[in-house]
């Protein structure tokens, strides 16, 4: 054990390997998981109370009505409700009459937003209201998805880590991701696809989706689980794509519809890999540079001009000034260089993530300018970070909790962006006009839970 040279070599190798690993976990991820756990705990507690109540009531009933009856066989919990079969019948296709001439459901400047109805977040089979949000913030109803059409015990999945709960395709198919609500739930994870032009029609239900979903070109939905299910909403058909060994796949379609962006790891060292596209037949094709990506929301742009942005939050991490607190942006260049881009002042906290602008020249982010602010005046600033020590404040947005404020969408050419203002008491969405800094709360005082895509436009992004 006293081979100092080997030990030192090993230390360097382990640090080189681990330090190359981007750190992407955000405060929002932690709080979101904690909130999910709390909801689960409440569901269990309520189920326990209900079970105890049933036992006591049954006992009282037996005692009162049959005092001389033999002892009742013990059955501490009521029988669970049988879960429905999640697989769908072929006739359940929402699109048997659909074709390529299917109209859009709104205009290009309308954002599709949704609200999960009901005040009890733990209630299964919640109704979901969908709206087209106009640039002035007013809402036009697109209809309501009846929660009763979801499987029994199914809870709409609000976990942002795997993307939003509701995503709407270019031509108006809404995919709703759901999961079990607690230990007593028999529901399996799944996705229900509705036709917004005919909400009376039963949804198509697809098993899986625990790792998210994403719409692609041609009204095709990729549902991620141990494998990928591709659902063609126009044809009403589905197929399965196997993820090969040594391939990791991203929730992002290539704009040409060939498949999903993926990475093939070719060696023991993580730095040895090939980037490309996993085609729908399960083949990995190297694509250098990566093709343009199809995006319904315009979100997730991690690369700009060959550079990658990272948000280290550990004070001992690379590129950080140990005197500073919070998270900071480090931009890695294709030549291996790393530069710290600050959010202007040293006392601002940068929660969440950053996204490159449409031409890869700058970064968008939301910054908490006053981390200790009283609840009544909490806000975030929407910043465009243009380089080292350079940033432009584009807008100021009032929020409940700066740690849960996120940019959730971009319109073409970054002319507009959407900020989700999450919080324990429900959230809302704010449209920000980037040229003027005008911030418009969508739906006034109405609570809204998310952004599902633009009504009549798709965005594309070139990941290089």
């Amino acid at each position, binding site marked *: 054990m006293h081979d100092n040279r080997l030990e030192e070599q090993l230390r360097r190798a382990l640090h080189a390997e681990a330090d190359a690993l981007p750190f992407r976990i955000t405060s929002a991820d932690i709080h979101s998981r904690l909130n999910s756990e709390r909801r689960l705990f409440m569901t269990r507690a309520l189920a326990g109370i209900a079970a105890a109540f049933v036992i006591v009531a049954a006992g009282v009933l037996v005692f009162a009505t049959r005092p001389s009856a033999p002892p009742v066989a013990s059955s501490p919990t009521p029988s669970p409700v049988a879960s429905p079969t999640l697989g769908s019948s072929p006739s359940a296709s929402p699109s048997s009459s659909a074709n390529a001439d299917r109209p859009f459901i709104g205009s290009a400047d309308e954002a599709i937003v949704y609200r999960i109805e009901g005040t009890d977040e733990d209630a299964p089979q919640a109704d979901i209201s969908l709206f087209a949000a106009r640039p002035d913030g007013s809402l036009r109803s697109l209809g309501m998805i009846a929660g009763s059409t979801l499987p029994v015990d199914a809870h709409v999945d609000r976990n942002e880590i795997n993307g939003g709960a509701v995503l709407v395709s270019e031509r108006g198919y809404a995919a709703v991701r759901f999961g079990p609500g607690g230990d007593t739930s028999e529901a399996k994870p799944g996705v229900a696809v509705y036709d917004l032009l005919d909400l009376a029609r039963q949804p198509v239900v697809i098993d899986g989706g625990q790792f998210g979903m994403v719409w692609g070109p041609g009204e095709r939905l990729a549902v991620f689980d141990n494998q990928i299910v591709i659902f063609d909403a126009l044809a009403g058909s589905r197929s399965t794509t196997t993820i090969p060994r040594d391939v990791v796949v991203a929730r992002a379609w290539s704009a040409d519809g060939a498949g999903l962006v993926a*990475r093939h790891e070719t060696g023991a060292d993580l730095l040895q890999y090939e980037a490309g596209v996993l085609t729908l037949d399960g083949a990995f094709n190297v694509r250098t540079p990566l093709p343009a990506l199809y995006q319904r929301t315009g979100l997730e742009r991690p690369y700009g001009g060959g550079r990658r942005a990272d948000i280290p939050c550990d004070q001992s*991490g690379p590129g950080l000034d140990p005197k500073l607190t919070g998270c900071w942006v480090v931009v890695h260049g294709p030549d291996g260089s790393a530069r710290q881009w600050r959010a202007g002042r040293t006392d601002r906290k940068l929660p969440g993530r950053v996204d490159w602008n449409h031409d890869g020249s700058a970064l968008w982010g939301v910054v908490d300018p006053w981390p200790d602010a009283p609840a009544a005046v909490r806000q975030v600033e929407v910043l465009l970070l243009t380089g080292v020590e350079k940033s432009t404040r584009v807008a100021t947005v009032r929020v409940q909790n700066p740690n849960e404020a996120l940019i959730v969408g971009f319109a073409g050419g970054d002319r507009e962006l959407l900020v989700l203002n999450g919080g324990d008491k429900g959230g809302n969405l704010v449209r920000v006009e980037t040229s003027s800094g005008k911030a418009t709360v969508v739906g006034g005082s109405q609570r809204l839970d998310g952004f599902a895509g633009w009504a009549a436009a798709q965005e594309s992004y070139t990941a290089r």
Partner: protein
Amino acid sequence: VEQRDVQGLRERRPEVLDALLDRYGREIQAVAFLIVRDRADAEDIAVETILTAWHRAGDLRDEASLRPWLLRIATNKSLTHRRRGARVVQLRVVPDIHLRDTAPDSVARIALLAGVASLPPQMRAALVLRYYADLSIEEVAAALGKSPNTVKAQLQAALDRMRLALADEGADRAVRHA
């Protein structure tokens, strides 16, 4: 700072989650990654570790031992973690910065990392805690629930295997250059 974090944990103050993430998140993720060899799993384990610390703050006796305690939780989660069935990642993981380096030091590094990856999980965990996290033998032993002598023996065996990995790589290179 550690005492303040521990106090915050015991009082269940939500902001302590942010503090733990800021101070220890990257290291926890790194330790998890070096053991499980999967980015997505390592991120999951890091989040789970911080939440476990939040729920079990009462188990931490010594306020000065917060960091080794967190790494102990992360190590245990890494050793018992069930690998994800699917390999689905965020887009930013895919076209990461691409460095191909065939310099001698890099070749040795790759050989060492391949050697680490081939170790049994318990031995790999001991190696990572000792040579990445720089924990003492006693702290590694506490994290793994083993005696210090057992850990010393495991580390000795692991280093022997690293020497073999380097020797094999050297022999291969000699053949390639012959």
